């Protein structure tokens, strides 16, 4: 022990502090959690990451790199995705959810404007090569991730141009061709080979690919219109939904006449109707249930309504009426909804005697899509329609993986991209002999666990569509480009759920000075020599980044 100083007056520079950490029964830890936006996103994009970079550093370039780590199609998805992330966004429980979709579009457009290049993750090329069948979103996403990981990839596309449903399904006013082309080209610049006009199963056997490549990915899509089987469908100007869109997107514009009736309630039906409107027709949509049961995304339905497309619910087609093998009308019957059927939706039953004729010059049957299995019949299916895969996205054929609409049934571009990403990881694991998939993620954090006091209410970014009469004049995008500052403002609304955003509360609220900012890393750390486990930091962390665990 030291000798006692005169008057017990102590030199404060010589003090050895008492380690109060020994009192602790609970211990705080910084634990990153998954925000519900990422959790809801079929691609598991690091949404929090790209938004915070925009908000804190106003750095569009880094935001683009964060986003394209998982999603090579930000400009595309920012236009066509139904944004389940926004439904999951915790800010929904505070004021309004983040306009993530528009932010994604802003970042994607920036990447295109500035010709940003994707970064490879593995620089030395690997000896394995993978064949990808189909250059839709699933196939291209799979090719993208494999190429970044150093694999040699070749994409086989049956159509003349790449893109799959992005090109041949989605109309230009939703997704300008130029945008999509440039995003595809950016992927190809990673060294991905592309051969078009080659239909695997017809022009080249799948087994050949299985021989020549170490793995195969099937991104076939569901590009065939399902047969409806109503009388009169062989008449001229009766189209399937996908067939109609394919023609339009290939440049073959049919004569639709004055009245167009579209049957169906999905996105394809909406797209067909809105295209027909732009071709100058009066358009009705006929659907046997109601709006509530329509599978199309809300934005599409609403925009279709704005474009003065008529919606006839409870209506089912019975027969196509033609005159000299030209369509003149559609006989429909009114339906009433009974208890739910196998799909979980109310069962529609026709009301006898309620038939009526809708005048129609063109009838578009957009009531379902199927996979084109031409030459690929030996692949295992579920429900006799979709490719069946195990949890590693491998099909019944060894080393053949699949994803996208062909596996999930009709789904979105984003879901397909997500599958492509997962398949690429599964392929890499498979080729390396990894049994365990490294897809485990931290638990999700919900708003109820967060401290809303530190956030301020702010109006959500809203995009303004051009007026309806302007829209219908062309196939141009209906939402003009966003001002970069607006996106940055919106990104500032991100609550950073589950990850520190440097609010300094833990640093400032600790009565024991047991939280320090590391001068080199810029990260916060607990000084467990002194932390008493009082939990004030946990309570006052706005984004639930700190949790208490039992001290050993």
């Amino acid at each position, binding site marked *: 022990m030291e000798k006692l100083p005169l008057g*017990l007056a*102590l030199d404060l520079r010589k003090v050895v502090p008492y380690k109060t950490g020994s009192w602790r029964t609970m211990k705080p830890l910084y634990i990153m959690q998954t925000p519900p936006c990422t959790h809801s996103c079929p691609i598991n994009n690091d949404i929090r990451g790209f938004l915070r970079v925009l908000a804190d550093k106003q750095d569009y370039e880094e935001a683009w790199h964060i986003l394209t780590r998982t999603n090579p199609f930000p400009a595309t998805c920012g236009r066509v995705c139904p944004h389940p992330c926004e439904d999951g966004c915790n800010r929904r429980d505070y004021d309004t959810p983040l306009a993530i979709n528009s932010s994604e579009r802003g970042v994607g457009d920036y990447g295109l404007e500035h010709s940003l290049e994707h970064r490879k993750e593995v620089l030395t090329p690997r000896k394995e090569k993978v064949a990808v069948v189909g250059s839709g979103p699933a196939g291209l996403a799979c090719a993208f991730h494999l190429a970044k990981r150093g694999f040699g990839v070749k994409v086989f596309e049956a159509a003349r141009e790449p893109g799959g449903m992005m090109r041949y399904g989605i109309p230009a006013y939703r997704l300008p061709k130029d945008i999509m082309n440039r995003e595809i080209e950016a992927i190809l610049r990673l060294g991905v080979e592309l051969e078009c006009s080659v239909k695997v199963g017809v022009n080249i056997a799948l087994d050949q690919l299985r021989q020549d490549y170490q793995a195969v990915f099937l991104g076939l899509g569901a590009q065939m219109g399902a047969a409806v089987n109503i009388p009169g469908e062989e008449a001229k100007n009766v189209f399937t939904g996908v067939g109609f869109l394919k023609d339009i997107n290939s440049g073959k514009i049919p004569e639709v006449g004055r009245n167009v009736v579209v049957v169906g309630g999905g996105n394809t039906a909406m797209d067909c109707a809105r295209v027909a409107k732009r071709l100058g027709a009066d358009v009705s949509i006929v659907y046997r249930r109601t709006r509530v049961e329509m599978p199309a995304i809300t934005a599409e339905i609403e925009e279709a309504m704005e474009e003065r497309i008529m919606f006839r619910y409870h209506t089912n087609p019975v027969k196509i009426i033609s005159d000299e093998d030209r369509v003149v009308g559609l006989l429909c019957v009114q339906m009433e909804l009974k208890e739910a059927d196998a799909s979980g939706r109310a069962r529609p039953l026709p009301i006898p005697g309620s038939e009526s004729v809708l005048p129609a010059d063109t009838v578009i049957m957009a009531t379902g899509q199927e996979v084109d299995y031409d030459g690929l019949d030996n692949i295992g299916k579920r429900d006799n329609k979709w490719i069946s895969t195990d949890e590693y996205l491998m099909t019944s054929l060894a080393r053949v993986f699949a994803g996208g609409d062909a596996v999930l049934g009709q789904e979105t571009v984003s879901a397909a991209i997500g599958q492509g990403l997962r398949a690429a990881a599964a392929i890499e694991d498979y080729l390396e002999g990894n049994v365990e998939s490294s897809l485990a993620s931290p638990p999700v954090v919900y708003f109820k666990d967060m401290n809303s006091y530190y956030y301020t209410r702010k109006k959500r970014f809203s995009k303004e569509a051009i007026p309806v009469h302007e829209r219908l004049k062309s196939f141009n995008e209906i939402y003009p480009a966003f001002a970069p500052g607006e996106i940055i403002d919106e990104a500032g609304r991100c609550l950073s759920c589950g990850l520190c955003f440097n609010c300094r509360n833990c640093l400032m609220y600790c009565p024991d000075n047991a939280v320090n900012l590391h001068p080199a890393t810029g990260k916060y750390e607990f000084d467990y020599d002194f932390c008493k486990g009082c939990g004030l930091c946990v309570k006052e962390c706005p984004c639930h980044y700190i949790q208490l665990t039992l001290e050993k």
Partner: protein
Amino acid sequence: MLKYLEGSHAVSQVVAMCRPNVISAYPITPQTHIVEDLARLVGEGQLDAEFINVESEFSAASVVLGAAAAGARAYTTTTSQGLLLMNEVIYCIAGMRLPIVLTCANRAISAPLNIWNDQQDSMTVRDAGWIQLHAEDNQEAADLHIQAFKIAEQTSLPIMVCMDGFILTHAFEPVDIPEQKEVDAFLPSFKPQHIVDPRWPRALGLYADPRFYMEVRYILHRALEKSENVIRQVSADFAQAFGRESGGLIKTYKLEDADLVIVTMGSVAGTVKDLIDELEREGKNVGLLQICSFRPFPKQEVYRALKTKMNIVVLEKSVSLGRGGILASDIRWSFPRGEQKGRIISSYIAGLGGRNISTESLREMVARVEKEPVELAFLGLNQEIIAERDL
């Protein structure tokens, strides 16, 4: 320079020459003239110091505590009730080893209220860890203050200079007031050992748990014991510098051949010396032992002086109620055990509440102790006003 002035003013002028930085005071009779004069000196610019008019004695002591802790030479003065009120701070100052000088204009304690002189007040804090020096006359009162600052700053102990209220404070005597340069030569500027200053961060006033407290108190006790040497030395240095004796631990008067020794403190020593001279002319040998430093109690010096004296009477202006004479107890304790065979030490309490001590009443005391030992007596008690039940 020789000046004819009140005891209070002698003190205030000398204190001013010691260049205190901070003075705080709350007025209480009979100390008021000291603080008033200091206020005047500060106000007229003759003394460059901060003069704080506090709202109580408690704050007066606290202000000088804070000032000393910050490195200032600090001074205050009080008496009686004021000293009792600042009791807590008195102990604190000693425990913190702050070299504060305080003038105690000794006065009686309530109840009942009495503003006249005795020494009960300074007795209440005799155990606090302060050096307590008693002045015999105004000259010594003044001189002791110069010595006090030096002793305090050398020992890091606070010092209480006791002077009898009214008897000294309000009496006019010729006093040699030194020149400023003489005081400056004798008393260097204060170089504090431990202060609060952001340039050298220190903590003063930490609490000490059972592991450390006892050692701190032991150290304080030893500091007081060792300060006897400093008191003696400074008194010697003062004599050399200013050409007169004052202060020190004890003084004696005609002790060598004395058959009876009177032991006392303070201004009554003057009266005792007069009596001794009278008795000498009558053929009696009486001597005086004057205690100048009451704390630390100069046990060895006392023993040496009284070793051969077999009849001793302790005359004091204080009493430990329920026990007896305080100075008497200390004197009795000065002799090693077993050595006291045959030695008589009588205890007389006198002058409480300003009761006059004259040579006549002292003669009565001498007459009595020559005949018999007196365990405890109150000098000049008026039995007539004491009811039967109170005897």
